[in-house]
């Protein structure tokens, strides 16, 4: 199976984020890392390849710095990479990112496209589904398990409330992968060495811009959420605290 994994570089989890001057985005002088859900998507693709054979290709859309995400993926075992390289990709809405990726792979024939569940920066959780719509392929989201079956695949979807569901679907299709479904591997030293010789195709903004449309979604302002709650602090000997809490539960919150 030939699998494309869409990956994104996002600010490090503990990065001290600061607003830019226009308060529409964060300042870029921070550390970045791979979007964690995408790491699980890559891992799942590598496992599928180990089981069924084929090829794993990774793609990202972002500035020069985001090549690091592709290098790491190649070191872990991806076969080749596609980098839509331009600062302007950062502020595209999910629909346009999907359009750009779809355009960049129009000459390729993939069986599957994987994305992570959502990104840790925007958190739209849409790029995979939109990509499926643009490619004209079926999709399934929040996938826990994938097996080849009768020329297609049978996937396990997570529903809400502890429910799951198996879905049978044809190829090609797009899947968004649930985080935590596998154990992430580390790149080996030999993998890191080999990665340097693996193909990385650069795609410029101009090569895909004809497929893009004006962003429909505009971030007017970004700000630190205001704390809206008044927090009452209770301290003291455990017995007193317990009494106060129990009275509060009964008289104020009326939970019983």
């Amino acid at each position, binding site marked *: 199976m030939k699998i494309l994994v869409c990956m994104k570089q996002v600010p490090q989890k503990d990065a001290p984020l600061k607003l830019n001057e226009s308060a529409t985005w964060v300042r870029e002088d921070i550390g970045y890392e791979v979007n964690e859900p995408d790491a699980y998507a890559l891992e799942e693709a590598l496992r599928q390849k180990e089981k069924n054979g084929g090829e794993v290709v990774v793609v990202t859309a972002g500035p020069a710095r985001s090549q690091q995400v592709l290098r790491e993926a190649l070191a872990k075992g991806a076969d080749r990479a596609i980098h839509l390289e331009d600062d302007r990709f950062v502020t595209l809405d999910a629909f346009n990112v999907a359009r750009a990726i779809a355009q960049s792979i129009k000459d390729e024939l993939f069986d599957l496209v994987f994305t992570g569940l959502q990104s840790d920066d925007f958190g739209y959780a849409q790029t995979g589904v939109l990509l499926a719509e643009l490619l004209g392929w079926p999709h399934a989201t929040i996938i826990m398990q994938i097996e080849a079956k009768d020329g297609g695949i049978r996937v396990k979807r997570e529903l809400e409330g502890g429910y799951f569901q198996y879905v049978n679907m044809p190829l090609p299709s797009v899947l968004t992968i649930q985080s935590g479904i596998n154990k992430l591997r580390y790149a080996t030293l030999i993998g890191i060495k080999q990665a340097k010789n693996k193909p990385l195709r650069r795609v410029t903004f101009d090569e895909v811009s004809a497929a893009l449309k004006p962003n429909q979604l505009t971030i007017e302002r970004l*700000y630190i959420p205001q704390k809206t709650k008044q927090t009452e602090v209770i301290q003291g000997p455990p017995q007193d605290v317990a009494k106060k809490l129990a009275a509060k539960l009964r008289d104020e919150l009326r939970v019983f």
Partner: protein
Amino acid sequence: MAETILVIAEQRESKLNRVSFETLTCGQALAKQTGWTLEAAVAGNNIASVAAEVAKTAVAKVYAIEDGTLERYTPDGYVAALKKFIESSKPKLVLLPHTYQVRDFAPKLAASFGAVLVSDVVGYKYENGKLLFVRQMFQGKFAADVSLSGEGLWFVSFQSGSFRGDQVQPGQAPVEKVNAATGEIRTHPEAPFQEAKQAVDLSQAEIIVSVGRGIKEQKNIEIAKNLADALGGEIAASRPICDAGWLPMERQVGSSGQTVSPKLYLALGISGAIQHLVGMKGSRNIIAINKDAEAPIFEIADVAVVGNLFDIVPALTEEVKKVKV
């Protein structure tokens, strides 16, 4: 022609998902401010009772979009049915709850109109005739006011807990049955199932007692369970507890688990990583017990108890048993 707001309610196996009431509450508030008409729709098969339940809220009309092909959810089936319906009813704004099902089909539905879905929205602002939607960004570290270009059709999905479902205004709306349009369905779902026998839908729980790393050992979970039992609530946990296998995964609250908005959320030894907070911050009352006064959980807590949970929780369990008649 008057502008219309359409709320798409969610059902599974002919049972209304309660989170739909939150979206209806939001729709009612928006309709009041904008003067637009509020309507609701629900898609499925044999959903008369669901439509009737939605019709008990203050909306102008409820559409029951029905067809046998919608018996079991598929993105193709839902998009075919809702696309056709939206084409004919021409709403300006479509509101949905940001559920797993909506995440699965709504981006595709919006894209089929060349439109963008503003997903996982926590609120809105109506300023000088302009609608802004508030989203969390960077895992809740920032909020963003987001605007949409054009005059609609716009699609917006709301994070669970952003509006109060119990504040939905009652009413009596007419129900109109619509025969759903059908199209090719390319994915074939099997019946939904639960992995564990005692699976619980935490999103429907009124009281949740949740444990985090501060519980230290698996055997200490009992302390929290006793309190949950005394309160008549459900036990839940943050991700590390479920990863360690101390509680089943289905009890996990957070971005990779369930999103809950109970009447009472008691957080025991939970520091409050953003991945956890996004799953429970919509709770109506949050009581956090943690020995670290700087724990981020206290930022969103209504009641902050700084202290040792191993002393306080058993004492609280006894007190609850006493005052609960």
